[in-house]
């Protein structure tokens, strides 16, 4: 795979370019007010869009059954995050729940 270095440098440059783009541009121009309000919703929208398919899909198909251990462990983690507001504790509870459910053979 001799092309891989080309792929990595091009991909890396594009990735950096996108990360840098608006930090650079909005240093030169002011951010429009509408856009400023829109950006407030980036974290909940993006992270929810990452989380929800991880919990509800198994093998690329919707799985709402009790056999979906990731969904059960994820719901427990959501409740834990809401009440504890502690990142580490939430991760530990979620992982422990997943291991336990898998060990139980669900």
């Amino acid at each position, binding site marked *: 795979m001799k092309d891989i270095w080309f792929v990595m440098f091009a991909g890396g440059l594009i990735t950096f370019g996108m990360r840098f783009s608006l930090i650079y541009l909005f240093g030169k121009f002011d951010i429009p007010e509408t856009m400023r309000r829109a950006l407030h919703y980036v974290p909940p929208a993006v992270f929810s869009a990452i989380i929800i398919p991880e919990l509800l899909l198994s093998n690329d198909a919707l799985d709402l059954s009790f056999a979906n251990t990731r969904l059960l462990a994820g719901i427990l983690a959501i409740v834990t995050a809401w009440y504890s*507001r502690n990142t580490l504790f939430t991760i530990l509870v979620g992982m422990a729940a997943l291991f336990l459910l898998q060990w139980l053979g669900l």
Partner: protein
Amino acid sequence: MSELRRNFIEGLRAELPILIGVFPFGMIYGALAVNSGLSTTAAQMMSSIVFAGSAQFVTAQLVSEGAPAFVMILTIAVVNLRHMLYSASLAPYLKDLSLKWKVLLSYLLTDEAYAPSILYYEKEGLAKYKYWFLFGAGISLWLNWQVSTAIGVFLGASIPDDLSLDFALPLTFIAMIVPVMKKQPVIAAAVSAGLTALLAYSLPYKLGLILAALVGILVGMLLEQRESAKEKQ
């Protein structure tokens, strides 16, 4: 303690639990990359040249499928599109920095550095040396990513893939984002984005994620507008 050091340490502290979730993810990447036919050097270097977890996973996958170079580059670009949203969202807080700092912090701008930083900035507002928070979070994640990749590359095939360690990553995002779900427009943005992501999951190159993010942002804004219109009445 100086403001600068305080912000740096706050960033490290906020990142620490995330590192625990990311570490196994880096190991799994390293193992997957060498198993899919990348040389150990290339597998390791991708973690600093591209430095973007999900894009690296997809690239390793495409290498094993023998995809052409332009497909891989295009895929990296689309999978990383969301970073433009992060860039825009952090821009107001980094506006007055020198070009050198903007370049450095942009390079370090990953999902896992962005999440705690934007939550911190939205809560604490703008002040001198606040960018050291992002630097602390970003640089610790970078080091963690390089080391975990190296261990994964070294262990290679001996890491069992049925351990479900990858689940730690969505858990870190749950831990970050659930506590800020307080106002109705924010909750609506999250729910609508999540549903869109489900419906659009089969779109190629993770385009569903971008679509979902845009739907979520739009729904959040519309609800916010409706609420403020009600308050005025």
